[in-house]
């Protein structure tokens, strides 16, 4: 997995107007995901070749190099079909946990955009706090950094091609990550 939120090899900062477009994209995405419009998000914002990953890293000493077991666990490692099933589950009408409906709120911030080497793609950094309210008493807060890649479709609109979430809190305190980050 790419080291998330470190500069890309040849980081050419995108124009402010592209950055604004990207930011608007992320705001719209957040709004769709927090207003039960996951299907619209799926249909209109995802690239068919999307790779959607959420990663935790095991805590290791930065000096110990002799230990060579994998250090990443992927909470999500989804393609477009797997994401489709996740949206299906939400829409199934028999997911007891989401009735009464949950309320999500995303704070998307620190949006930076870079031109990718591969012509036309945009590499996007952002930081997120998401708070999920459910039932009467549950409010769980999540925070993470994202490195996305966006690509324009034939219609010229940006679509999400890659999402890489670095989940820095080693033990997930919000008890599950069953939402789109």
């Amino acid at each position, binding site marked *: 997995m790419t080291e998330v939120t470190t500069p890309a090899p040849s980081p050419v900062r995108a124009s402010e107007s592209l950055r604004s477009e990207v930011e608007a994209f992320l705001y719209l995405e957040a709004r769709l995901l927090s207003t039960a419009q996951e299907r619209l998000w799926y249909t209109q914002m995802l690239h068919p070749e999307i790779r959607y990953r959420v990663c935790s890293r095991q805590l290791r000493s930065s000096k110990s190099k002799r*230990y060579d077991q994998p250090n990443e666990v992927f909470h999500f490692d989804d393609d477009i079909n797997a994401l489709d099933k996740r949206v299906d589950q939400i829409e199934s009408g028999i997911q007891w*946990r989401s009735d009464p409906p949950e309320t999500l709120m995303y704070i998307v911030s620190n949006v930076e955009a870079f031109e990718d080497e591969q012509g036309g793609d945009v590499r996007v950094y952002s930081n997120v706090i998401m708070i999920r309210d459910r039932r009467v008493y549950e409010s769980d807060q999540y925070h993470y950094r994202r490195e996305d890649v966006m690509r324009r479709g034939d219609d010229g609109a940006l679509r999400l091609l890659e999402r890489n979430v670095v989940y820095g809190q080693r033990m997930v305190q919000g008890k599950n990550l069953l939402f789109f980050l």
Partner: protein
Amino acid sequence: MSKFETLVDMRNGTQQKSVFYDRDIYELELERIFARCWLFLTHESAIPNFGDFVTTKMGEDEVIVARQKDGSIKAFINSCQHRGTQVCPAEAGNAKGFVCSYHGWSYGIDGKLENMPFEKELYKCKVDKSKHGLVQARVESYHGFVYGCFDDDAPSLEDYLGEMKWYLDVWMDATGGVELIGPPSRSILNCNWKTPTENFAGDAYHVGWTHAAGLKVMPGPLSVLSGNAVLPPTGAGLQVTTRHGHGVGILYDAGPALMSDMIEEIFAWQARKKPVIEKKLGALRARFYGSHLNSSIFPNNSFLWGTNTFKMWAPRGPGQIEAFTWAIVEKDMPADLKEGITRVMHRTFGTAGMFEADDSDNMETMTHVNRGFVTRKGKMNSQMGLGGDRVDPDLPGVVGDSAIGETSYRGYYRFYQEILNAKTWDDVRANNADWFVPLLGEQTAEEARKAAAA
């Protein structure tokens, strides 16, 4: 008689709701269960080389588990013998030893105290270093699964696993061996540690209802169960509970049913390997290989064979746990099959798992409704199949003849009460001959004894 001796009605399959809430009960559990039973630590494959180590929890005790020079494995408490500071903040690594960050006392990879800075110059009263090593736990392995125990008086790991070995051998051994893919995911759940354990031990009943949505949208042979549309037919499976509370439920031939886009590949793999296993173990047990097994090893270690998830539920007070999740793969699988299984396992039973999250609310509310004073005076029921449990000459343990039932709940809580009551392991051993009586009732038990004698 202490108020802790009647938490479980072994014969009638009920338990006090307060076992999920009461802090005094919890403190007793730490003492009599977690400081005395065998607790899962790691799989050997995570620490293959000399100096490799992982850190984990035994109850609420933090421990380091390290591979020794001679290939053996030791486990010791992650707290300095000087003033108590944690000596290793990493989750895993390879080290020559552990140096305390406070005053620099250093311990070998075996936990022995090796060096105290300026010992010669500063310690007038000689401190006997051999008595100041990190506190050791017993460590034993079964087919590469490493367990630790703080009680010297406890039986060996093999004796502790007891009848369960016969079932574990199928996938742990006859397959040619398995390993766990780490690092584990780690997450909080606000539930009592027994709620997921009892569920994995013996709860096929909830699958169709709790997981209705997941079953519906994940196409596979079990989709028909969604919303309890159908019941698995008679003979579809089996439940087993054992001497020390471990339980297993078997759903025949359903192996990788929840493995989504990996189902076919896994079925194909299993079909190829099955003949080998049948040759080793015979048809009866070989069938387990392609089946789905849900199971818990008492007190807090669970797995699903088929969905290939391996769990440890570390207690954090009576109302919270930390869930550790690893993927189980067969050692001889090709890398991309291992990778695929790991990916799909996390998608179903990981922290963002489509099935895992279905269970959360149940486990959390069944814990926390007991804040209610009147609520927690009530009892929980695990009577499904009560009266039908029996001893079978071909199947170790006490058996319930149905894919769905609560045989393993009853067996789990029978041992829970037994070990809570026991002052030492000798008190437990004294029941070895007759442990199953409360589960079967006197009459059935008598038949069982006769059959055993015959």
